[in-house]
């Protein structure tokens, strides 16, 4: 009985980041990469994968160290842990996938200041067990990946007529160049926020209605 409850709690820890508490579309964190590197689907996914690796690694480590790190120096300690992970990712990516590394450029280094990572460290990993922190980070990372994929796909399709570099709309499609420029990022973000908010509202309405009927 108890283990069943635990499992469902752990599961909840994992899935909340993907949809209900999506870091980008619901909590609205990590806007810099969301706007800057989502001009194509592949860039978005590569950025999200790098971020997810740092997020999972640092959440797990910070959770393991949470009882050893004094409260007064915790922020500096988190930054050191996160910066180390990012530097290692930067080197590894340059060695393993130089092409992706070149595309993402300076944005890899900027993962250090991604507020999703710092936010999860401070709000979750510092107070929870390694297992729960790991699941939370994985869920949030997947949520971030989903968000960047959604942003990048639509922007690439409208702005370039292609998806993952494969031409979809043929040579006669007049691309909406603005979609791959910075303003397109803001427009797309607004549209997706609207979609997520509409989903949320509909769900809430349904719940209220069900409650009323039950009453």
């Amino acid at each position, binding site marked *: 009985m108890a283990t069943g409850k635990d499992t469902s709690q752990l599961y909840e820890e994992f899935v909340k980041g993907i949809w209900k508490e999506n870091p980008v579309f619901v909590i609205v964190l990590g806007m810099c990469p969301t706007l800057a590197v989502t001009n194509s689907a592949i860039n978005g996914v590569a950025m999200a994968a790098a971020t997810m690796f740092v997020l999972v690694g640092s959440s797990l480590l910070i959770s393991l160290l949470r009882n050893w790190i004094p*409260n007064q120096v915790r922020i500096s300690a988190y930054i050191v*842990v996160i910066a*180390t992970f990012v*530097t290692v990712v930067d*080197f590894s990516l340059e060695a393993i996938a130089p092409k992706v590394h070149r595309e993402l*450029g300076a944005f890899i280094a900027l993962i250090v200041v991604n507020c999703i990572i710092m936010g999860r460290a401070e709000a979750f990993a510092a107070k929870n067990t390694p297992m729960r922190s790991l699941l939370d980070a994985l869920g949030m990372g997947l949520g971030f990946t989903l968000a960047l994929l959604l942003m990048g796909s639509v922007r690439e399709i409208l702005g370039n007529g292609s998806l993952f570099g494969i031409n979809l709309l043929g040579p006669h499609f007049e691309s909406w*160049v603005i979609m791959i420029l910075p303003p397109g990022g803001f427009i797309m973000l607004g549209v997706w926020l609207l979609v997520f908010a509409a989903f949320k509202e509909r769900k809430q309405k349904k719940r209220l209605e069900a409650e009323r009927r039950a009453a």
Partner: protein
Amino acid sequence: MSESSATSVHEAPPVKSWVLVFTLTLLGLISGLCIVGAFQLTLPTITSNKAKALRAAVFEVVPGAKQMQPMVWDGSALAAAAKDVVGSTIYASYDSAGVFMGYAIPAEGPGFQDNIRLIYGYLPGTKRIVGMKVLESRETPGLGDKIYKDDKFVGEFRDLAVEPQVVVVKGHGADPNQVDAITGATISSKSVVKIVNAGNESWLPRLPAPGQEPPPPGKGGL
């Protein structure tokens, strides 16, 4: 015991200063070791990746080339690269039999957003550019990045006269020294041509006279 637990409800127990310093120092030390370790581990791969990419680029911009010989300009003369000579480098290219073909000339300059680094192949015999490859750029994705993604634009550099100099035209240029600008990326197109012209200006007068090219590597060369 009960007293200390009572205070901890309201505020964290005092931590000695040296503990704070020690924690951060230890973390910094471990972090430093991790970073240096990762750097040392990846350095050989990164270096060999770069060398491989350079080789591939040289052979791409001088079609048919199979061997290359770096040549360094030391300020007064162009000679096959030696260990203690530093300076800007171009790459003499040879076919598989070791017959000289042309030069691959790296050049860089400002683009629309950041410096563009490229390499182009030049045949002194015909005074033509025969290939161009962008090595590094941060041009706008979908627009400026067509300087290397658009086959038509890149194709303009497969047979391009350099005299009197390369010019950018809108629409269709018919002359052998004309490059058609990319629609929506005129600045990036102009930047590429400007970089190529600057490269020609500084390198073409330095090239050895025809017939006096250095021998291919392994045959009296490096």
